[in-house]
């Protein structure tokens, strides 16, 4: 009855080692990587229209690096992402901690409501922010973008914090209190240090979300407050040259660097 295992043939449940599964994995990886690899490869193409390969050049990277409005949009993205990450990490950690620690009336409803920004379609939130700023007559710019980014990233940070706190050993807090430490002391010395990897993970998540955001930013930006993705969209919409590919590659590299940092910190934290 049992499939007799030959020595180096995979066991029935070791799907990962079966030929067909490896083909499936390969096909998926090609599917996932081909467009991006092609995009990066063609950023070096010496052809303005960028349809056929005409030769290797770095001149579109030069153009991208010398493109003043591209610079500015990158700086804008950094400013917005930095401020919104700080605020959203603080606010998100607060709400995450409160949800972890306290029981209160209508808690499930509150949890549902505070996670809404995660599930609602971005376009709904984008137009809502536009309508809001128009109604209260706040001109669109970096301020409105940042405020919107904070609003939509808070729940993500909260989720990360809650997940982190789920593994917290409350007895440590109780021991600390038993030994006479006050509430704030206990918090800063026991609870908070445990939270830190969660806070860092949440901060990096918020930063990436803000940096990459397109739809919500699209509706809340004004002149002079173009962010990097919005600028790339404008370049994609009008006159596509390898410069777009070059700018995109730069964004990919930046995002990957951040991700790598996040992973490194997380793995260090889990070992510590």
């Amino acid at each position, binding site marked *: *009855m*049992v499939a007799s295992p030959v020595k180096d043939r995979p066991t*029935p*449940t*070791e*799907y*990962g080692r079966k030929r067909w*599964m*490896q083909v*499936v*994995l390969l096909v998926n*990886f090609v*599917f*996932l990587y081909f*467009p991006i690899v*092609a*995009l990066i490869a*063609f950023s070096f193409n010496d052809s303005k229209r960028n349809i*056929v390969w005409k030769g290797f050049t770095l001149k579109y990277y030069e153009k991208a690096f010398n493109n003043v409005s591209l610079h500015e949009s990158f700086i804008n993205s950094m400013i917005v992402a930095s401020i919104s990450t700080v605020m959203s990490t603080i*606010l*998100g950690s*607060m*709400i995450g*901690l409160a949800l*972890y*620690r*306290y*029981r*209160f009336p209508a808690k499930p409803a509150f949890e549902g409501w*505070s996670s809404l*920004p995660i*599930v*609602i*379609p*971005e*376009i*709904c*939130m984008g*137009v*809502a*922010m536009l*309508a*809001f700023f128009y109604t209260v007559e706040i001109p669109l710019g970096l301020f409105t973008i940042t*405020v*919107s980014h904070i*609003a*939509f990233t*808070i729940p993500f940070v909260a989720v990360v914090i809650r997940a982190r706190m789920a593994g917290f050993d409350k007895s440590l807090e109780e021991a600390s209190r038993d030994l006479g430490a006050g509430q704030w002391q206990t918090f800063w010395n026991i609870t908070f240090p445990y939270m830190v990897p969660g806070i860092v993970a949440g901060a990096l998540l918020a930063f990436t979300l803000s940096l*990459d955001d397109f*739809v919500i930013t699209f*509706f809340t930006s004004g002149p002079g407050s173009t962010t990097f*993705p919005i600028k*790339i969209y404008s370049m*994609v919409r009008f006159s596509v040259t390898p410069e*777009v590919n070059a700018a*995109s590659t730069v964004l*990919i590299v930046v*995002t*990957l660097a951040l991700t790598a940092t996040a*992973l490194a910190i997380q793995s260090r934290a889990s070992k510590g």
Partner: protein
Amino acid sequence: MDSWKDNKLAFGVLLGPPTFWLVVFFTLPLAIVWVYSFGERGPQGQTILALSLANYERAVEWIHLGIIWKSVWIAAVTTALCVIMGFPLAMGIAFAPRRWRNPLLLIVILPFWTNLLIRTYAWIAVLRTRGYINFTLEWFHDKLDRLFTLVGLPEIMGTFSPLELLYNQTAVIIGLVYIHLPFMMLPIYASMEKLDRSYLEASLDLGAGQWRTLFSVTVPLVMPGIASGLLMTYILSLGTFLTPNLLGGTDSMMIGNLIAQEFGPSRDWAFGSALSFLLLYATFIILWARATFARRGAASELGI
């Protein structure tokens, strides 16, 4: 867990500011859109506050129902394709030798970390008339043509006509599957990773074939993960805006694009608000349905 009454000050301090932010900069904007949805459009596109259901009536006019149906359909096809591709992918990684799992996972997630706009744009070069897919097909066509000519059948291949893969629903679906595959794969993987292999082995030992085991044992056990994946993929695809905007053609307008059009060049914010809220209600209904099934599912799960 403490009761909030145990420490009202700490509770208030922790919950107050974030709640304030979310109320003012999230709920209030949505409320404004909700109010607008009952308003009217003035002659130059201003929104006049009113109490009219005209926008909602207009939203379910035949022509707009077409867009709604299109969005529902495209999202459904996307979700189906994602689960067909994502399930084996999740299995492959979950059942891979332990030390391969994290690297494999990383490789799958990495493209996900790149910007949505860039990932969608990358497909334009692949799908267009003079794009990589058509170039490859043309190359094959050329080679076959030469082969047949050598054999003495010069006309058999005919001229090459490139596939129309861009600026239509096909392109939008390909783009959406590409973007949402990780959303489908990850929850399924998370469920599968925690799966107790002994169930599978027991099933195989008892004589069930691989397929039978798959459908009778594996799938029911990872159903929460599958459900999560289906849900997220569907909701995200339904409300998508950028992908049909960049990859779609005249036949691929989805709800997100219509909303953007009404808040943009068409300057009918009232109508756009109504559409926006219809999309929201649809999202809520799907989530509520999921929560209901989850509660029932959880009960039966506890029995295992």
